[in-house]
């Protein structure tokens, strides 16, 4: 990812900012120029819920370029508590511990880095919810 593109998306990646369709009420992430449900172009920024439930998941053994050092890693489709659906890495969990219905919360991690001299890309990932012992 180019540095300018990363910079433009910082707000959305760091703080889970999505968009709310003013026409049909759908919550959209990542941001788009029009609502994928009704085609409306009137979209407002909204803060997404930071907790959700795993709908489906897989383990990436052969990752795309830039993610090699993190493999193997879990990627899940998560339904956030506000209804939005988000695709995210799930960390602090072993693949055998993953299950549909697992409750997860947003965390802040390194997502990718441009070699040893380039920019470090940070952003959201999810993890099982931390609770009191």
């Amino acid at each position, binding site marked *: 990812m180019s540095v300018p593109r990363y910079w433009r998306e910082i707000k959305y990646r760091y703080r889970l900012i999505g968009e709310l369709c003013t026409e049909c009420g759908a919550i959209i992430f990542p941001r788009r120029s029009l609502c994928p449900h009704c085609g409306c172009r009137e979209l407002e920024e909204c803060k997404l819920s930071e907790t959700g439930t795993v709908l489906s998941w897989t383990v990436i053994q052969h990752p795309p370029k830039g993610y090699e050092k993190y493999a193997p890693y879990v990627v899940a489709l998560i339904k956030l508590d506000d209804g939005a659906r988000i695709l995210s890495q799930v*960390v602090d969990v*072993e693949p055998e511990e993953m299950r549909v219905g697992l409750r997860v919360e947003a*965390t*802040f*991690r*390194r997502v990718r880095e441009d070699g040893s001299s380039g920019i470090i890309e*940070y952003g959201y990932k999810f993890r099982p919810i931390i*609770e*009191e*012992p």
Partner: protein
Amino acid sequence: MKTSRPVGIIGYGAYIPMNRLKASEISRVWGGCAEPIEEKAVASIDEDAVTIAVECARYAIKRAKIDPREIGAIYVGTESKPYAVKPCGTIVAEAIGATPHVTAADYEFACKAGTEAFQACIGLVSSGMVKYAMAIGADTAQGRPADPLEYTVACGGAAFIFTLKSERTLAYLEGSYSYVTDTPDFWRRGLEMYPRHGNRFTGEPAYFRHIIGAAKGLMAELGYGPEDFKYAVFHQPNVKFPVKVAKRLGFSMDAIKPGLIVPYVGNTYAGSTPIGLAATLDVAEPGDRILVVSYGSGAGSDAFSFVVQDAIMEGRPRDLPVSAFIARKRYIDYSLYSRMRGKIHL
């Protein structure tokens, strides 16, 4: 040092990565026998001082129940900056939604960089320059393989938000004291991956001289003795040093026990004293007085006296205590540790 207007802590949060490496596993690999702690926290491959700082900052804001846009200063104390040039403070500020009307920077003073940030935040709040100021101590400390330091160097951090004392603050500051000299007990030159240290020289002329100097200086200034404090937190590079310094200053084991997390977490460097304070605040009652003394090689100590207020009870049991992060763990072996800490070069 006393502030011109009373200052308190309105929120705090800690974060400790979940990976643990047992000291016995390091002994197994390198053949050592003296194990200074039980186990230490190790950052995952996608964690660093910035991600740890963001985690504790978010917990601190949650506990403080404030709008992050009202935070006027964010200082991150660390010696494991992911970038040599580019502040951690700006990334934290952006991640918590405090930008752009905020001052942000990083502090470096070995293990006391976090409490050095305390001093700056307390001054900014007391002067009226900012409403809220956040000080963070966070590190992913480096230790050369087979070095005695490898047993203890660990990862974690804690964040504290300061504001003027009110009924909403969890504890208020009575005074602080800094004690600094040029003592070359531990250092890491630019572009070097691991630090070097003076072995036994790190004890008496370094750790003990500065901690005792700062603690005695503060108690003399405030007119207190060890009997006036319910709890004490001393920088914890291992188990032996804080226990020994507590005894020499006249504090009991009961006083330091709640904040003594090093046996299960390791030395989180700039995060060490702040996490110890957070763990102590987790169990303290209104009216309890806490002495906090950090130590950073190079060298210096910051001492603080805090008195716990009624508002501390409001967050219980809602807010996550340090014990939740200590209990959350998965054990890794030396191979996985080497991978996670970048000790394997392909």
